[in-house]
Every structure is written in C-alpha cells, then in structure tokens.
C-alpha cells in the first residue's frame, strides 16, 4: 500500500513538471526557444538562422602590456615584461528599460569576471538600479579599470585602504538632479555581500599578516557604499567636481590561522573609509589642449589593521602569538595634475601618501611621473617613473613602459 501511494505521488509530480517549470521540458540552456527570423526572408529554418547575429552585443578587447624595471633598496633589482591585463567586454540593451554588460579580465593564467551587471532605468527620471557584480562608486579613481588609470597601478592611498579593486556583488541605486542650468548633483547607495579586497593566492601569513587583513575575514552582514557628488561648469572652459564617498563594512571577523592546528580570531570588527574628492578640468577652445587636477582625501576609521604580537619572535608557530587589532583612524591622500598639449601627447604627476594602520602609524608615499603618447585613438604608449618610500617596507624606484591597445567598440559614460 505504501509503495502504491508513492507511485501516485510520483505520477502527479511528473505531470506537473512541465507546468511548474519555467520553460519547455526539452530545451538546452542558453538556446532560444522560438524560431528566429531569417534575415534573407527565406522560409528555411536551420542552423544557419538559429542564432541570428542581428542582436549580438557589442564586443571589445583591451590589451595592456608592460615592461617594468624595479630598483629596490634592499632586494636585488629586476626587470619584467608582462601582460598586465587582457580585458574583454560585451554590452547590449536587454529591452527598452535595461542594458547589461560584462567585463572579463585575464591576469596571468586566471580569468576573472571583473563586472557583470544590469542597469535598470525603467523607473523614470534619472534613476538607475544596478545589479550584479561591478566596481563600486567610490571617488574618482576607484571605479575605473586598470587601463583607464593615470598610471599602471591604483594610487597608493586607494590601494592601501580599499585594495587594488573593489568589485562588489550586490545592488546600487543612483539618481541625479540639476541645480540651475549648469550644475548636476548625483548620489548613489549600494549594498553588497562583500567589499573586502581580494586575497593574494600566494599569501604567506608569516610575512604579510598586516597587509592581508582581508584575506581571512568572514562576512555575516552586507557592506555598503554611498556617494554624493556635484559637478558644475566653471566658466566657459572649465568643469569643477566635488564629491564625498563612504565605504562601510559594518561587521567582519579576522582569522589568523598559521597552521591547521592553531588559529585565532577577532570578531565584531568594523571598518569605514570616508573619501572627499575635488577635480578641476580645463579644455582649450579647440578641445586639443586639456589640463586636469584633482585630489582625493581618505579617512580610514574603525578596525583598520591587525598585527601579531609574538614575544619569542617565531612568527607563524602559534606558540605565544596574540592578535592586536588597531583602531586608530588613519589618513591618506592622492593628488594629481596632468596636461595634454595636443591630442596625442600628455604629461602628468601624481603623489600619494598614507598613514598605515599599525602600532606606530608608519607612513608610505609614492610619487609618479607619466608621459603618454597616443599612436592613434586606439593605441597608446606610456612611460611611468615612480619612487616609493616607506617606514616599514622596502623603498623602490620603478620605470615602466606600458602599451595599451583598444580593439573594437569601447566607450565610457560620463565619469562622475
């Protein structure tokens, strides 16, 4: 009797399956379930017109390669040639109320999805709901990709407090309004499952504990971003922008696990980074000459650093080590200025300095000079010379030749 009841239940579920399912029973994921139009007008329907290319997304590629010479103060000097990043992008309208895009980046042998998001604009007004994975809205130089930066690395203050990149999985809502005829004010709020910097694969707990604060964090709560910015015409030829951003991690844990038999954890930690940015851009009457200057000030608050107390000096053994969480607010900033004297050539200088979240609030600074020559709209060569100084890490000088190529459709919106 019991087996009969089970049989009837199974039969009922079997019949219901096509009704409950979201689509036809026999369909391959990703295949269209309707017959597509044959552009030639023929009535034939075969493999040739199964996937019409008429609605394909726009694709583009960025190849960013560099040759670097590093002059270290203690370690041996060295040179390296590498593919900095291969970025590929696809984007397309989904329907009249949404468009979507993805950006993949190949670094070394790994392939990462940098961004994959939908912009929903069907609310009307100037509102946008962004969902998926994307670079969060913080300041001027944090939301851009590596090849769009002024040099080949994120400015020191940003990468120290926020990481090389912040790609969040979550939602962001933004809106803008006008004040008069020449000022626009925009704001955004985002909620993400995690905004912690990525962990290095070759992380070595014995030497990089303080730097890799994020590598062992556990996240129970959502993380948030907020930004308010206004930009306005400054005379006939200038534009001025002022912005404030916040990056909020309400709760995270830090796990120190030097071996499989020993670990320590600090829980209930909080970290908030506030940013203020100001940018002025001037464009000459022909549009060929441009001058841009800007600065970003960052305040890193809450539990922003962790150190290991190890009285016997045998770090990583776990015998007498204890965690020390630092919660003194630290400041960092980046300032830059660059000048384009014709459409092919520009020169610039960028300086960044940070207080480190450690017991002595050590300082680090980096100055970079860069010369960019565009061979055309689609390829450029950049020469970068930088000097890095640190109270705790090794000083270094760096010379880089960066070569960047854009293939295919590549466009950017208004960056604000």
């Amino acid at each position, binding site marked *: 009797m019991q087996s009969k009841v089970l049989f009837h239940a199974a039969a009922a579920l079997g019949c219901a399956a096509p009704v409950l399912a979201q689509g036809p029973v026999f369909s391959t994921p990703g295949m269209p379930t309707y017959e597509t139009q044959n552009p030639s007008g023929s009535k034939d329907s075969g493999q040739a017109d199964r996937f019409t290319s008429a609605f394909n997304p726009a694709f583009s590629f960025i190849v960013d390669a560099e040759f670097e010479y590093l002059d270290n103060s203690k370690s041996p000097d060295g040179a390296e040639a590498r593919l900095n990043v291969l970025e590929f992008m696809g984007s397309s309208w989904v329907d009249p109320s949404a468009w979507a895009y993805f950006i993949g980046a190949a670094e070394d042998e790994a392939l990462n999805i940098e961004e994959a998001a939908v912009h929903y*604009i069907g609310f*009307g*007004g*100037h*509102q946008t709901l962004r969902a998926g994975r994307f670079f969060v809205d913080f300041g001027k130089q944090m939301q851009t990709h590596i090849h769009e930066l002024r040099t080949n690395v994120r400015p020191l203050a940003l990468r120290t407090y926020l990481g090389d990149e912040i790609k969040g999985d979550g939602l962001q*809502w933004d*809106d*803008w*309004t*006008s004040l*008069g*005829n*020449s*000022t*626009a004010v925009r*704001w955004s*709020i985002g*909620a993400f499952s995690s905004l912690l910097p990525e962990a290095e694969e070759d992380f070595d707990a014995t030497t990089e504990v303080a730097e890799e604060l994020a590598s062992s964090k556990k996240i129970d*709560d*959502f993380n*948030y971003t*907020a930004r308010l910015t206004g*930009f*306005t*015409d400054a005379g*006939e030829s200038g*534009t001025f922008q002022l912005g404030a951003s916040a990056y*909020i991690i*309400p709760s995270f844990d830090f796990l120190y696990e030097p071996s499989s038999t020993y670990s320590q954890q600090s829980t209930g930690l909080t970290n908030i980074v506030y940013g203020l940015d100001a940018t002025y*851009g001037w*464009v000459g*009457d*022909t*549009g*060929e000459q*441009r001058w841009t200057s800007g600065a970003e000030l960052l305040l890193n608050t809450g539990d922003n650093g962790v150190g290991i107390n190890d009285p016997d000096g045998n770090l990583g053994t776990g015998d007498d080590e204890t965690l020390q969480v630092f919660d003194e607010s630290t400041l960092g900033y980046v300032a830059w200025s660059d000048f384009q004297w*014709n*459409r*092919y050539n520009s020169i610039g200088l960028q300086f960044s300095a940070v207080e480190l979240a450690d017991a002595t609030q050590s300082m680090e600074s980096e100055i970079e000079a860069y010369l960019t020559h565009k061979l*055309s*709209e*689609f390829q450029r060569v950049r020469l970068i010379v930088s000097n890095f100084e640190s109270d705790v890490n090794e000083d270094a000088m760096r010379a880089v030749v960066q070569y960047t190529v854009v*293939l295919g459709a590549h*466009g*950017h*919106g*208004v960056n604000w």
Partner: protein
Amino acid sequence: MKQQLTLLLIALCFALFGLLNSGMASTAGDPLRVVVTIPDLADIVKEIGGDRVEVASICKGRENTHAVVAKPSHLVAMSKADLFVEIGLSLETAFVPGLLEGSRNVKIQPGKPGFLNCSEGWQPLEVPTSLSRQAGDVHPHGNPHMNLDPRAGRHIAGRVLIALLALDPTSKDYFEKRNASFITRLAEAEKRWAALGATWKGSQIIEYHQEFSYFAGASGLKIAGAIETKPGIPATPNHLAELIGMMKKAGVKVIVTAIWSNNDTVARIAEATGAKVVELPNMCGGLPGTDTWIGMMDTMHKKMAEALAVAPIAK
C-alpha cells in the same frame, strides 16, 4: 541593526528627493527647448524657430568635434530638452551616446519625435565598403562633415522644419514663413558660391583631415591628398615626404586646414612646397564672420578665392 536602519532611512530620503526632482517638463506656451550638437545646427534651428525656440549648442565653433568633453550644463540641457538635433553619420559619437543615456530624457531618444538626425536622406560621401581600423578612424556611415557642404543648409533646414512642425503644430505658419525667408537668402548665397566655384573648378588642394570632401566636391575643388596618413592617424615621415613630392610634381599650391589642425606639420609642408595655408572653419563661430551658416560658407568661399587668387564675387 541600528546602522542598517540608518542606511535605509538615508536611502529613502534620497529616493524621495529623486522623485521630487524627476519632473522637469516644459509647459505649453513655452519656447521649445532645443539642444544641438554643433553651432551650424543652432543657427539653422534659430532661423526657422525664431523666438519659439531656445537653442543650446554642445560644441563651440573652434572645437574638434572628435574631441568634445561633455560638461554638466550639456547634461542638464539634454535632460530638459524637447528636441535634440545632431548631424549624425557618427560625427558626434565622442559625446552624444553618453549624454543621451545620462539625460534619461525619453522625449529625445532615437526614434522619438524629439530626436533629429540631420543626415537622414543625405547622400554621404566616402562610405567604407568594408569596416576595419586598418583604414584609420573611419566613420561607418561615410564622411560625417556634411555641414561643410554648400548644399547642406537647404537639406538641414528641411529636416529641422519637419521636426519643429511635429513638436509644435500650432506654430506651422510661423515656422514655414521663417523657413521660406531663410531659403530665399540661401538661394541667393548658393548663386554666389556656384559662381566662385566655376572660377576655380579643378584646382587642387591638400587637406589636413578628411573633412573638406563635401565642400571641395560641391565647389569644384579637387583634393589631391591628406596630411593625416589615414583619418585620425598622424602623418609619418615617409608619408610627408611622399606628399611633399607629389605636391611639387602636381603643382598643388594650397593646403586647407581646420583651426584645430593648423599645426607645425602644416607649416613644415607649406615651407617645403611654397604652398599657401588656408585655415577654414569647420563649424559656425570658428572664425570671425562665421556666426551664421550662410556667413560661414561665404567666409570659406572668400578665403579659398584669396588663396587661389580668384576675385571674390560681391554679395
């Protein structure tokens, strides 16, 4: 939890502020708010629209249209516009797509009555037969500098009239009367330009960027070469040597350049060949006397007449 509630409250405040500011439509009786990409279009829209339009131009007369930087005022103007007018043919791709998307103004999106592409119905020159960046910064729909064709004023005026009538049918008589007045003045000017073109027909010139093809074609000039290797690609030493050799051999005595491209390379070629350099506007407002489209065309013809040693025709 308290922190999350605070964030939620902030989000709701922003949402409310956004909703309050989302309605920015013009009211009946107000002039139509028109945003155009280049001053040439502004002049023609004003000619036909008179005091029933308010016109703002994104580009300034001396700018290189390929290198325009969007400003806050452009975004605000686009968001409030009743009509957006562009040349099209991908001339404005550096700034129009971002501004159109950012403006979120549904009235001026492509396909709507408030979006006007003036190149529709125009027969473009130099349409690439295959698309490859090997050909440089080419425009997929052909040479986009149609505003420099002496015949373009009539075409653009026709397109603008249709758009204005669709958006404000109550002003039909007003717009048509103003259009007729503009066409009358244009017809007189076209006779002047045709007479001058007949005097220099077949004369050869060199241009910096491939932007004077329409002007040359309509006024009887022959473009013997360009200083850029390919559109948007700077000249190589090899290309310049060949160009100078060709100019000497063919007796090309005039180099035509826009304001943004009148650079050291042009001066070097002029010195090597003894050619005259003629700086022409590529938009209204680029040079003195070019505030109107007819005025710009007059100036272009006058400057060419001087360079080719032809007596200008009196107005």
